[in-house]
C-alpha cells in the first residue's frame, strides 16, 4: 500500500494533477449517476471542512475537537438570515464566514494559552455548548431539535443551483478556491508563523512572532472557512438540525486532518476520502456489516496511528524523511 503511494507520489506532479483535474471536471458528464455525483458534492463540502480545520490543527498545531461548532454557526447564520429575513444565499455566504470568524475570536481568545490536552477538552466543551444552545433554543430562533427548514438554494444572476450536477460544479469551484488560498497561505509569512508556533511556541515568541495573534488568526480563518462550508451545506440540503453539528462530526473532521497527514492539502483529501467516501462506498457494497462499520472504524483509527502516525499523505517536507525510512527498511 505504501509502495503504491510512493510510486504515485513520484510521478511527475503536473501530469498527475492535470489528469486529476480533467477527471474531476469531466466526472458528471461521464458518470451520469446522480447518487455518485451527490456523494462527491458531500465529499466536497467535507473536504472544505477538513481544509478549514487543517489550518488550526495541521498548520498551527492547535487541538480543536469542537470544529463542528463553527460549521454550525455558519449554517445557522445562513439559515436564519435566509428564512426570516429573505437574504439571498450568496449574500449570506460572506456574512456567515465573518460571523463564524468573529465567534471564533471571542471564544478562543481566553483559552489560547492552554496547553494541548486542556485545549482539547475546552474545544469539545465549546462544541457541545453550541450544540446544546441550538438544541434547547432559548431565544426561539434555532428551531430546537427539529432545526430549520426551507432554506433557499443559491442563485447566480437568476440561475438557481438545484441539480446535483449544478451543485457539483458549484462546490468544485469553492473547493478549488479553497485549495488555492490554502496553498498561498502555506507558503506565506503567516503560514510559516503557524508552523513555528506549532513546533515550539516559546522559541517562536522569542524569535519575534506574536504567537497570540497568530493563533487567533488560525482560529478565525479556520472558523471562517467552516462557516462557508456551513452556508453551502445549509443551502444544499435546505434543512439543518443540531444533530449534524455533533461532537462525533468534530471527531471525524479531526481524524480527516490527522489521518490524512496534518498540514498537508492532499492529505486532507485522502483523509476525507477515507472517512467520508469509503464508508459510503462500503455501505452500498457491504450492507450486511453496517452495524460493524463503526467498530471497524475505531479499530482502523488505532491501527493507522500505530503504523503511520504521520498520516497517509504527510506534508512534502517529510517525504525525504519517509523515503529514507522506506528504502532503509
Amino acid at each position, binding site marked *: 500500500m505504501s509502495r503504491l503511494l510512493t510510486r504515485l507520489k513520484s510521478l511527475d506532479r503536473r501530469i498527475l494533477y492535470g489528469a486529476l483535474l480533467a477527471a474531476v471536471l469531466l466526472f458528471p458528464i461521464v458518470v451520469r449517476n446522480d447518487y455518485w455525483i451527490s456523494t462527491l458534492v458531500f465529499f466536497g463540502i467535507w473536504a472544505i471542512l477538513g481544509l478549514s480545520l487543517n489550518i488550526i490543527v495541521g498548520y498551527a498545531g492547535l487541538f480543536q475537537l469542537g470544529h463542528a461548532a463553527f460549521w454550525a454557526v455558519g449554517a445557522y447564520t445562513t439559515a436564519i438570515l435566509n428564512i426570516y429575513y429573505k437574504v439571498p444565499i450568496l449574500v449570506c455566504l460572506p456574512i456567515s464566514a465573518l460571523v463564524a470568524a468573529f465567534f471564533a475570536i471571542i471564544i478562543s481568545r481566553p483559552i489560547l494559552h492552554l496547553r494541548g490536552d486542556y485545549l482539547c477538552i475546552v474545544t469539545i466543551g465549546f462544541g457541545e455548548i453550541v450544540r446544546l444552545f441550538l438544541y434547547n433554543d432559548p431565544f426561539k430562533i434555532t428551531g430546537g431539535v427539529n432545526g430549520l427548514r426551507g432554506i433557499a438554494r443559491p442563485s447566480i444572476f437568476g440561475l438557481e443551483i438545484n441539480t446535483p450536477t449544478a451543485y457539483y460544479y458549484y462546490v468544485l469551484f469553492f473547493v478549488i478556491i479553497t485549495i488555492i488560498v490554502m496553498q*498561498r*497561505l502555506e507558503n506565506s*509569512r*503567516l503560514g510559516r508563523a503557524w508552523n513555528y508556533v506549532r513546533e515550539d511556541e516559546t522559541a517562536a*515568541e522569542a524569535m*519575534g512572532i506574536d504567537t497570540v495573534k497568530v493563533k487567533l488568526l488560525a482560529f478565525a480563518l479556520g472558523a471562517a472557512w467552516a462557516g462557508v462550508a456551513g452556508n453551502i451545506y445549509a443551502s444544499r440540503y435546505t434543512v439543518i438540525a443540531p444533530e449534524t453539528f455533533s461532537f462525533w462530526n468534530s471527531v471525524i473532521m479531526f481524524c480527516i486532518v490527522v489521518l490524512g497527514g496534518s498540514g498537508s492539502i492532499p492529505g486532507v483529501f485522502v483523509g476525507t476520502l477515507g472517512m467520508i467516501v469509503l464508508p459510503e462506498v462500503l455501505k452500498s457494497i457491504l450492507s450486511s456489516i453496517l452495524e460493524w462499520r463503526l467498530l471497524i472504524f475505531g479499530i482502523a483509527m488505532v491501527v493507522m496511528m500505530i503504523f503511520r502516525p504521520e498520516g497517509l499523505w504527510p506534508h512534502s*517536507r517529510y517525504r525525504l524523511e519517509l523515503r529514507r525510512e522506506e528504502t532503509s527498511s
Partner: protein
Amino acid sequence: MALLEVKNLTKSFGGLVAVNDVSFHLNEGEILGMIGPNGAGKTTVFNLITGIFPPDKGEIRFNGRSLIGLRPHQITELGIARTFQTIRLFPNLTVMENVMAGLHCRTKAGLWASILQTKAQREEEKFIREKALEYIHFMGLGGLEFELAKNLPFGLQKRLEIARALATNPRVLMLDEPAAGLNEQETSELMDLIAKLRDKGITIFLIEHDMKVVMGISERIIVLDNGYKIAEGTPEEIQRNPRVIEAYLGKEE
C-alpha cells in the same frame, strides 16, 4: 548611557530567590560575559531581560526604554535576540524555514497580502529567501538548506540557532552557553564568529562555562553566585578575584 541597563533585578520562584538584586549594564559594541556556578541564576537573568517572565523587582532598560511588561516578541522586535541553553530549534522544519523565522518580525506581509499575493508580498518573499540564504551561508550551513533541523549534527544545530537569531537583525545578541558540547575546533570557530559579529556592530552578551571562551573573548565579565552578583570586571580582574575563586572552588566543579 549604556545600551542595556539592569538595576536591582530580583526574581523568586516559590520560596527560592533565583535572582537577587542584580545590577549591571551592557555597553554598545562590547562583549559581556556572565559566569557563575550552576544554579546561579544566569539563564533566569536572560529570561527576565527577554520577557519570558516578569521580575518581582527592578528595572530593565534598553536604549532608555523599559522592557518590563513587554512580551518576548516585542522585545525581539526592539533588537534583542537570544539562543537557548538547550537548543530550541523547530525540529521538523528545514534549516531554511528555521532561519526564515528570524525574519518574521522584520517583514510585514499580513493575511490579505498573503492570500492575494500582491506584488509587495511577492517581493518581500524573495527578500526573505535571499536574506535567509545570506545568514545560512554566513554561518557555514550552505548546502543544508532543506535538511530538517532535527537531523543536523549537534554542532551545526548550534550554528543554526545562532543563524536564526541573527536573522532578526538584533542590536544585542544574547547567547546562552554557546560553547556547551562543542569540541576544540568548533569552540575556536565559535570564538572567531563572536568576534566577527562584534565587528559587524552587534553587542554580545553571553553566558558560558567554558573559561577559555569567556576569558578569551569577553571584554568585561560579571559573576553571579546564588542569585547575587559577586564580581564585575575585566577577565584578568575576575581571575584574580578571591570571591570568584571561592564561589567556584567552594562548590562542586
